[in-house]
């Protein structure tokens, strides 16, 4: 490379950084930077009325799993916390499984429509995807609440005499999350299936594979990156969900997101809240790492 070319190239790189600087500053100020403060706060001591006292302590992190007995100071497993973590993980996995079971046939259906119709079906999935999550939570709430549409119709038809009480149960949160996150599963699955070469199916059937065998041994391995992407896209926000469990689960059926909020409100234990936030972030980062590895490995399956 000639010196002139080299200097032009370094000028171009410098301009690249300069042009990106305002965006980087904004995100450092109001997105990445504050995360470091949370990390620091997780190692401090709670103040009496919320906030923190600047004394180093590991109690925030220890408090995730253990509680100190107020009489003899011994450590015990915090059952209440474990119940909340277990509920969060369980509901998120169930949500991922249900959205996959419903989303895969839906994505397949859209991808196999004639091209003229496909855009319309895709648009129908995209509208709920961009619709306010609160509005969608509210919509499902109206359907499943005790005096809601579902119970009114079922009682009117004489199928039930007592309303089905779903609100403020784990089941309500599960239904709500599956409802609001379903489009996040369908879109990446569609993208993967859309690229799928249907001739491979003919080849499979020519070799006397049954439909089940074709599904298991031809379709699923090839669209796997889409399956992984959809699962991560549903699992990650489910695990950090705040609005849906708050509206549909009530105060008792908290998930991690609501538990974190509690520490900054009535709980007055900011270091514990900060440690919980960092722990949630670590789990999400681990999930994203799995996604990146799976998508780079699977990006070139048969070409």
């Amino acid at each position: 490379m000639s010196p002139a070319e080299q200097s032009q190239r370094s000028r171009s790189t410098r301009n690249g950084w300069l042009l990106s600087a305002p965006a980087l500053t904004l995100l450092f100020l109001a997105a990445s930077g504050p995360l470091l403060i949370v990390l620091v706060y997780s190692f401090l001591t709670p103040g009496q009325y919320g906030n923190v006292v600047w004394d180093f302590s590991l109690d925030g992190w220890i408090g995730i799993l253990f509680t100190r007995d107020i009489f003899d100071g011994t450590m015990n497993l915090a059952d209440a916390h474990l119940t909340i973590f277990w509920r969060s993980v369980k509901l998120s996995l169930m949500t991922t499984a249900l959205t996959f079971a419903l989303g895969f046939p839906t994505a397949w259906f859209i991808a196999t429509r004639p091209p003229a119709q496909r855009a319309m079906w895709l648009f129908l999935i995209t509208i709920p995807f961009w619709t306010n999550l609160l509005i969608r939570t509210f919509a499902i709430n109206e359907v499943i609440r005790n005096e809601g549409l579902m119970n009114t119709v079922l009682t009117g038809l004489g199928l039930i005499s007592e309303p089905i009480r779903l609100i403020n149960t784990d089941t309500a949160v599960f239904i709500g999350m599956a409802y609001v996150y379903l489009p996040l599963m369908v879109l990446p699955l569609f993208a993967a299936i859309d690229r799928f070469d249907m001739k491979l199916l003919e080849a499979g059937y020519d070799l006397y594979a049954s439909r089940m065998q074709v599904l298991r041994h031809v379709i699923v391995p090839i669209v796997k990156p889409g399956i992984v992407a959809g699962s991560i896209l549903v699992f990650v926000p489910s695990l950090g969900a705040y609005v849906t469990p708050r509206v549909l689960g009530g105060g008792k059926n908290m998930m991690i997101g609501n538990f974190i909020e509690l520490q900054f409100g009535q709980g007055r234990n900011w270091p514990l809240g900060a440690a919980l936030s960092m722990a949630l972030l670590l789990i999400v980062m681990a999930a994203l790492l799995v996604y990146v590895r799976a998508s780079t490995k699977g990006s070139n399956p048969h070409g």
Partner: protein
Amino acid sequence: MAERSFEVSRLPGFATVAIAVFVLLYLPILTLVVFSFNSGPSIAVWQGWSLHWYTDAWNNEAVKGATIRSLIIATAASAVATSVATMAALGTTRRAAFGGQTFIYVVINQPLMVPEIVTAVALLILFGVVKQATGYQGLGYLILAHAAFCTPFAYLPIRARLEGMDLSLETAACDLYANPWQTFRHVTLPLLAPGIAAGAMLAFVISLDDVVITEFVKSGGQDTLPTYMLGQMRRAITPEVNAISTALLGLTVVLLTLFFILTRKKN
């Protein structure tokens, strides 16, 4: 039944599930919209058509205040986000790949990866300290927070547009002795405009819809429409919330339709 030809791409039961999914996806939203026009106070028992929940919402001072606040925040935040995103998109495309480009992508897209509740808590702590130090309590915090998480949504469509753009027109402008600013102003910017408009619209919708971060960052009396609605849900729900939701839904659909028209690939 006549024998059907064997279609390789048909998997039994899939179409049924798909249709059921579409019905289940839209039934609650349609219910919400229909009951916003209910004349009675119920969101489950139909009592005839009426627009009075819309006029109630319109005349409700709290709703009016929240609407104006939502629009101010969304306008300011999407303007800031779109400006910085446009510059960053120009800085990260159409030049030789440079070390640190991945770093810039990761920082800009970071709000898409970190759970909202974590960012919300982080901003609660940071802005709490700043509020105490400066005494400033205004909407600036919300605008700053919204601008940050809207930036990736503005950045992605603008970058996509830039990547699909042909450099030859700009090279031609340079050959005709246009200076870099003239080239940008009269060649690049007009070509990029649909991407910028699409990015701004997406940023606006994302800001308008935000609940979690707003709920943690707002000071007293700074409810936006979504946080106002979240507060209302704890009380007895009336179709007024349906009316607000329907109006917000309508606005989202209009903006998204425009977005799709702007980003549609010309064949």
